[in-house]
């Protein structure tokens, strides 16, 4: 478990993010934020509330609906010494900015022989919500995971969200920071004093000995709920949240696998071509001899997200699906 410093205080995920932005903007006047409706309105999920008042309209401002343009502007500002935090309302809309992220931001450092750096954070949110349908419910991390030159962070708790966003802002490379729309109101302990969580450190959310469950972002609370149920049924699961998918803390995962000998990976994204498949292949390359049963991946169905709420629940893993899958892994012969 992470050493939670002096944790008397509870904050919502969105409040923790807000605090990270405030602290970093206060610390470094090169940090500025832009996005759609983030200034006066404070953002769709209130993450940027109060920042305009505190830091003024030069450093907190709204953009036109022009994702490719203003993301490119973030890249240009980052290349020339600024530290932009660019907000894209939904991860689905990042499909409009792939050129600037993949062909531009991810490449400059390499193509320039290390003379250019792009210290930009791209904040966005993804995952299934409550009836937002196929163009506002996707989990698209695999696209960014695939691209060398990008870092990828997906926090699941208020504590992680704050510490990781601060690290992302201080990172000299472009960071894709994907929040989850169902986590914004979740509460958790966040210490008063400053802390940073370095990218590339997984967190063991629950220690256990019978099974390793790997999950990130919106799947973590569901996995924690499932782990409680499993505990009552005699299966003591260890829950690992990589927190940043790039860089990936392989060591923590492999060490856990060596201990439990059983692995379940739970991802909200569609099953096909997901990050879970890659983590599974890493485990089989590096810890095959320790495995007592095949690595199982529980992912979303390979279909777009339906609007109907009951059908929506069918397409991404639910607590009972996780419990069932965990038993399959542990009891398989």
């Amino acid at each position: 478990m992470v050493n939670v410093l002096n944790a008397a205080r509870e904050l919502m995920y969105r409040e923790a993010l807000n605090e990270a932005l405030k602290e970093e903007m206060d610390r470094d006047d090169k940090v500025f934020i832009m996005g759609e409706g983030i200034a006066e309105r404070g953002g769709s999920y209130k993450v940027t509330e109060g920042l305009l008042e505190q830091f003024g309209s030069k450093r907190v401002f709204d953009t036109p609906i022009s994702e490719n343009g203003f993301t490119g502007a973030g890249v240009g500002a980052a290349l020339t010494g600024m530290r932009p935090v660019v907000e894209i309302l939904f991860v689905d809309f990042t499909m409009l900015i792939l050129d600037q992220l993949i062909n531009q931001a991810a490449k400059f450092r390499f193509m320039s022989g290390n003379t250019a750096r792009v210290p930009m954070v791209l904040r966005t949110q993804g995952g299934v919500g409550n009836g937002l349908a196929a163009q506002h419910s996707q989990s698209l991390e695999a696209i960014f995971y695939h691209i060398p030159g990008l870092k990828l962070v997906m926090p699941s708790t208020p504590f992680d969200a704050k510490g990781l966003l601060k690290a992302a802002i201080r990172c000299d490379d472009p960071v894709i920071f994907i929040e989850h729309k169902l986590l914004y109101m979740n509460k958790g302990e966040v210490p008063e004093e400053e802390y940073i969580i370095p990218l590339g450190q997984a967190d063991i959310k629950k220690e256990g000995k019978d099974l390793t469950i790997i999950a990130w972002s919106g799947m973590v609370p569901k996995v924690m709920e499932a782990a409680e149920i499993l505990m009552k049924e005699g299966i003591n699961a260890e829950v690992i949240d990589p927190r940043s998918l790039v860089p990936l803390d392989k060591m923590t995962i492999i060490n856990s696998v060596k201990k439990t000998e059983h692995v379940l990976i739970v991802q909200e994204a569609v099953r096909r071509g997901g990050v879970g498949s890659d983590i599974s292949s890493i485990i089989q390359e590096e810890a095959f001899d320790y495995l007592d049963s095949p690595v199982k991946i529980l992912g979303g169905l390979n279909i777009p997200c339906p609007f109907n709420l009951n059908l929506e629940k069918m397409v991404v893993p639910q607590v009972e699906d996780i419990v069932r899958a965990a038993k399959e892994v542990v009891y398989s012969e």
Partner: protein
Amino acid sequence: MKKNTEDFLVSLYTTMYKIRNFEEQAIKLYRQGHIRGYFHPYLGEEAIATGVCAAMDGKDYITSTHRGHGHCLAWGADLKIMFAELLGKENGYCKGLGGSMHIADYTKNNLGANGIVGSGVPIAVGAALGISIRKEKQMVSTFVSDGGSNIGSFLEGLNLAAAWKLPVLFVIENNQYAVSTRIEDSTAETELYKRGIGFGLESVRLDGNDVLEVHKIAKSFIERCKNGEGPFLMECVTFRKSGHHVNDPGLYLPKEKVDYYKLHDPLLIGKKHLIELAGLSEIDIVEIEKVAMAEIKAAIDFAIKSPEMSEENFLKFVEEY
């Protein structure tokens, strides 16, 4: 004729001559197998980069295009390091990892060529956004082609720069062809400066082959950018004297246009300025060209003799990825 003006005209001509001969020599090096991949020569468009960059200062920024050698040289790039990069050598501007389409010098505010048409434009807008946040007296010139003027990045960049009143000079190099497609087949409005007007920018169309005209307009826009009056747009009408890239013979370019631009050539016009405005003789000009050519030859020699990055260094370089 004042000495200052003479020096200025000589420096403009020298830059154009170096770009022309850099490209012609690079084509030779390509045919000889020293340069691999492909590249896009700036032949025939030399006056634009030369005129615009001469009106800027070193604290300003440029973004270039896939046809970017001319912008780099006009910005003051070192011929040796340029050739070394084109030959994929470790002492090139990008250690041989970028090549022609990604050549850049971030230490000198050259934000680089770009292999994706139009994508340098939002990046230039971002550099200007940083300038505006820092409240500095700098500006950014972004070069884009007629082909690039049809892509969303360019149009979004224009709108952002105008909405946020940023110090950007948009320079459209209208060479009349997007790869092999005539401008008349790409757009219903072929006077591209009107795109600027549509977004609220003061915009002009001018002869992009006359370096003095380019310089005059650029200078005024650049000064006004620094006084907070930006952004601006200039459409420089020109003609690509070659195919799209080094392997494209450009057979689709109509003979009458090719013939017209053979006479309306930026170097011929530059030479005329030297003779008529600076009082130089043909012999003086030959002397200038000799010196520049010697520099180019020495740079090629340097690049050919330079080492490539070793496997060991490359593996060290990619460790963090």
